[in-house]
Every structure is written in C-alpha cells, then in structure tokens.
C-alpha cells in the first residue's frame, strides 16, 4: 500500500476506473489539456482518447445536463464542477432531471452519473470558492450525497459512486486535497455507499462530522483525551443514504452528541441528524444535542481573520467537547 494524498487518491481511482471500463468518461472545465484546476486529471489527455476526457465551455448547466443524457443513454460519466460554488446554474438539472428520471419513468431509465465538486473553505477562496453545498442536495430524494474525508475512503467511495446506478454528488474538501495523507491499496476497491465509519472509539460523547472538520475533531479529541475525556467520532462518509444505525448505536453508548460541519448551521445537515437522534434516541440522551457549525452569513469572507472566525477550528471544537462533557 502506498501513502497518498486525497488528491492523488481521486486521480488514481478515476484513472483506473477509466482503464477498466470505456463507458466511464470525464467532462468539465479544463479537465483535459490543463488537467483540472487542482490537477486531479493531470495526464489524462495523454493517456486516454480525447472523447473520454472532455473539455467543456464554462457552462455548468450544460455540463450536468449533457452528463445526465449520457448517463441515461448507457454511459458512466463523471462530471466535474470546478468549484462547488459554481454548481448552482446546474441545480435545476440535478434536482429536476437527474434525481427524478428513474421516478418519473418508473425505473425505465436511470442516471448512473457522478458529479464531483471540490467544496469547503480554509484556502482564502473568498465568497465564491469556499462554499459547502451538501445540505441543498441532501434534501433531494433521488440523489446520493457522498463526502469522503480520507484518501482511503475517497478511493473506495469514488469507485462505488462510478458504478452506482443512481446519481451521486461527490464532494471533496479542497483543503484536504494535499493536507491529508494516508495509505491506499493499489487495486480498485469499493466502500459501500451508506455505511458510516467510526474514526475514533470513545465513551463520553459522540461527534458526528465529516470533511476538514473530521480531521480537526480528531486533533481536538486527542487533546482532551489527556484530561480523561473519551470522544467517539462518527464519519458518515455518505450523507444520503445516512447510516442512522451507527449514529444511534454510538449515542446509545455515550449519551451525548456534538454535530460539527463548516456549512452554516440553520437548516444545515446537522439539523437532520439532531432531529433523527431526538426522535429515535431521546431516552439515551444525557444532554442537549449540540451543533458547532459555520455562522449564518451568506458566504465565507476572504479576510483571514474572518475566514478563521467562520470555520470551526481545533480550539473551538475542544471547547465544545469540554462544555458538553461537563454537562
């Protein structure tokens, strides 16, 4: 097993999946000659024929709309939206067509496509290059929403997503691309979509988190462990379908839940998790369910102080853990 970054994990998995099956094609802005703005598809154009590595105009609704048509007509397209913030022009296609084509046709057509988009902040991208968009799509039945946080999960989930019969929103936290490294098997492998992963065992409280926040939460959990606070961390890996059983199992054990995401709090994904646990795990709770999320402001600002204030940091998480542990 080689140690890879999240970025290398995406690059290598997509590459091997394309070698294995010629129905897999990639399309997006600058994915070909340039190799992608983050270099995810560097070298693809040299390796694969041109009609499998499709450079598109700056036209998101067409990238996704065309991808849906290809997917429903026998292909396995992987469409890249350069930054998750740019996905909104394609929102109609994703919600009205990709998510609905199986339902409206009573299973006559499906839409086995992957929409990859780097999301999240911490890179001084400012108002239109830092957004988290997962909650918009998690709300829509018909879509699957996957957020891998480690190189190992990225490879296994991406390969599953490519061969999933339904449309998969695949959000990669761009700050983790080069920051997070880990061992990744050389061969293609699948991690089932819908299975959470316990990233840390603990007794005193449960943290539900994903993306960059997962790594901050692990660091914070290690700090408080020195003071005898034992934190369990559940990484959902996929928001839809959600592994509700693992979340409930953990809360049953720890009796406390802290939900962390960098997307803003109001109607964020954490609200759904809190509602589910309040409904199905109420009897086990020894404290109110707490959320630590981005603030309810329209976007992540550029200024470094403001950006840091927007993103929950290791210290913020540590403080939230201590407060909840003491409750």
């Amino acid at each position, binding site marked *: 097993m080689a140690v890879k970054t999240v970025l290398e994990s995406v690059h290598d998995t997509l590459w091997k999946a394309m070698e294995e099956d010629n129905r897999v094609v990639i399309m997006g802005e600058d994915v070909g000659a340039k190799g992608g703005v983050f270099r995810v598809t560097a070298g693809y154009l040299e390796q694969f024929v041109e*009609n499998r590595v499709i450079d598109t*105009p700056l036209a998101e609704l067409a990238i996704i*709309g065309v991808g849906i*048509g290809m997917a429903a007509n026998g292909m396995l397209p992987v469409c890249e939206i350069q930054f998750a913030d740019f996905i909104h022009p394609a929102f109609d296609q994703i919600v009205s067509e990709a998510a609905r084509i199986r339902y*409206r046709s009573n299973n006559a057509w499906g839409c086995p496509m992957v929409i990859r988009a780097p999301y999240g902040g911490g890179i001084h991208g400012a108002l239109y290059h830092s957004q988290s968009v997962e909650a918009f799509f998690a709300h829509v*039945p018909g879509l699957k929403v996957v957020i891998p946080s480690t190189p190992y999960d990225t490879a296994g989930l991406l390969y599953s997503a490519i061969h999933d019969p339904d449309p998969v929103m695949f959000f990669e936290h761009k700050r983790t691309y080069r920051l997070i490294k880990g061992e990744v098997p050389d061969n293609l492998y699948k991690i089932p979509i819908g299975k959470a992963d316990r990233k840390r065992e603990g007794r005193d409280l449960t943290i539900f988190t994903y993306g960059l926040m997962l790594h901050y939460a692990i660091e914070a959990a290690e700090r408080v462990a020195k003071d005898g606070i034992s934190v369990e961390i559940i990484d959902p890996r996929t928001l839809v379908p959600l592994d509700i059983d693992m979340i409930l199992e953990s809360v049953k054990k720890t009796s406390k839940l802290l939900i962390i995401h960098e997307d803003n709090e109001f109607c964020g994904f954490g609200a759904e998790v809190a509602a589910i646990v309040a409904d199905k795990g109420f009897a086990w709770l020894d404290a109110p369910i707490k959320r630590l999320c981005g603030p309810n402001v329209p976007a992540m600002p550029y200024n470094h102080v403001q950006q840091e204030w927007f993103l929950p940091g290791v210290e913020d998480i540590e403080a939230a853990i201590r407060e909840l542990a003491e409750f």
Partner: protein
Amino acid sequence: MAAKTAKAKKESLELEMLLEWYRQMALIRVFETNAEKAYQEGNIAGYHHVYTGQEAVAVGTFAHLEAKDHIVTHYRDHGHALARGIDPKRAMAELWGKATGTSKGKGGSMHLASRELNFWGGYAIVAAHISLATGIALAEQYRGTDSVTLCIFGDGSTNNGYFHESLNLAAIWELPILFLCENNLYGMWTPAEEVSAVRDMTKKAAAYDIPAKQIDGMNVLNVYQEMQEAIAHIRSGKGPYFVEALTYRYRGHGAGDIEAYRTKEEVGQWREKDPIVQMSRYLTGERGVPEARLEELQAQVEAVVAEAVQFAAESPEPEVESLWQDIYAKPFPDSMSHSQGRS
C-alpha cells in the same frame, strides 16, 4: 422547374404512407378533442396543453425516424407521443392519472414517455430537456452509431440559457442532433416577438454556425420533404441541424386559457391552413382518393380514441405504495424510508 420537381417528388410518395400520415394527424386531433372533453368533465386535472393545429410537424418529421433514433420533447407532448406510436390507451390513461398510463399515473399530461420507443418524454421545465438531448446524442456519437436525436422545443425555449449552451456544445462537438423549434407564435401567453430579439429563430442557430431553415409546419408533405435534407445531414455524421417549423396552436396555451392575447381573426386565418384539411384536399384531389376512404379512417381513429377513453375510465388508480417506488435502483434501508410515520 423547382415547382415541377417538388410536384414530381410529392407524387412519387407512396399512397399508403400518405394515408398513414392522414390517419396519424386525425388520431391526434380526435385524441386531443376527447382529452379536452375529459378535462372539462373533471376526469383530467392539472396543466393540460393540447397539440391541436400542430399535427403536421410531428407526423412529417417522425416519418423519417427509425427505432434507434431518440425523441426528447416539451410539455405539449400528446401529439408527439401518438406520432411515435405510443398506444393511445396508455397515453389517455396517463392523462387520467391511472396505473395503466405510460408513467403509471406519476407523470400526467406533460410527461408521456416510452423507453421501448426511445421516446424520452415530455419535459415540463422549459428548455431544460435540450441539454439532456444533447447528452443523449453525445453518447450515440461516442458509440459510433448513426442514431439521430430529435429535440423538440417551442419558440419560448430559444430565449433560455439551456438552448444556447446546448446548441454551442452540439456545434463544437458536431453532434447527431436535430433541433426542432415548433414556433407557434406564443410562449404561454406572450407573443414570441415581444420577448425574442429576433423573429426568425434560425438566426439563433446561425450564431453557432448550425445549418438551419425555417419551414411551413402546417403542411405535412412540406414538413416531410424539408426534413429529408436535415435528417440526411445528421445521419451522415455532419453534425447538428436546426429547423424552425412555423405552426399554430388552435386551443390556447393550456386548459382555461381565455386567449385575450390574440384575435379570433388570427386563429381563423391559421385554421384556413389546417394540416388535416390540406392533406384531405390533396388526397381526394391530386391523388384521387375517394372521400369514403378518408371517412373510414376518421371513423377508425374515433373508435380507437373512444376505446382509449373507456380504457382510461375503467383503469385502476395506482397503488399508494408506488409513491415510494423507483426513487433509487435499490430501496434504502427501512431506517431511511421516506414513509416513516405515515402508513
């Protein structure tokens, strides 16, 4: 000389084929009349847009299509569905929202579809299906087939971003797609000329260097002949083609339209060009078909539609369970079931 050649061409068309086109147009007309009746009687609900007046466009165009070709269309789709060969019983049942309908009642009027016929259906977000059709064509090009994708939309769609992004892509990738604009002069209740910078929609195709022509969409023979060149161009791998068919909807935008935006005189002028009357005159005149033959076809389609109405009326409602079916290829675990708390 040109007129003579056109006449010679027309006369070389097989009579049986022409009678079939007549039958299809008559079927659509009778189907729509009965659908409107069922709507007024409260058996069809929601948003209901009939194709009456535009029959020649679908029939003359689809005559060129083969089983391997795809059709992706807009919400005024009953005529397209019937011209492609969808069983009128299943189409009518869908309008009634019945379990026997083409979408088992989930879709209704605007979403008739059949995978077996590569009829992708009516799409009710104006212009959104144009990019879908472009993707379908791209997949066919990738596999190296000579399948043609026909994408039909109205004049209203040509002002939308989907239209422009998709035409651009089809042009740069030389996709096997026919963009067919059914210009019936109104986008819902708004005259096309008030909201489009150009009245001649082919100019929009010219912006993307796509060969284009404007045709009379009220005469089925004319539509058939004009489409020949377009389809041949696409099927031979030369890339997309754009056709603007000038046509007219007799019955307003949808059910309940009081039609304050147009005059009775205008409607009357277009009715004089009625595609079924034109075809009837040609068949009984130049082709010497006895009136009785056409009356026989008319009686036949009326019987087919009466049977379709009866079938729709007698069909069962869909099971409530189907609400939760076909959301994903495999249902989610019970813990994520969308029926929680409701049974």
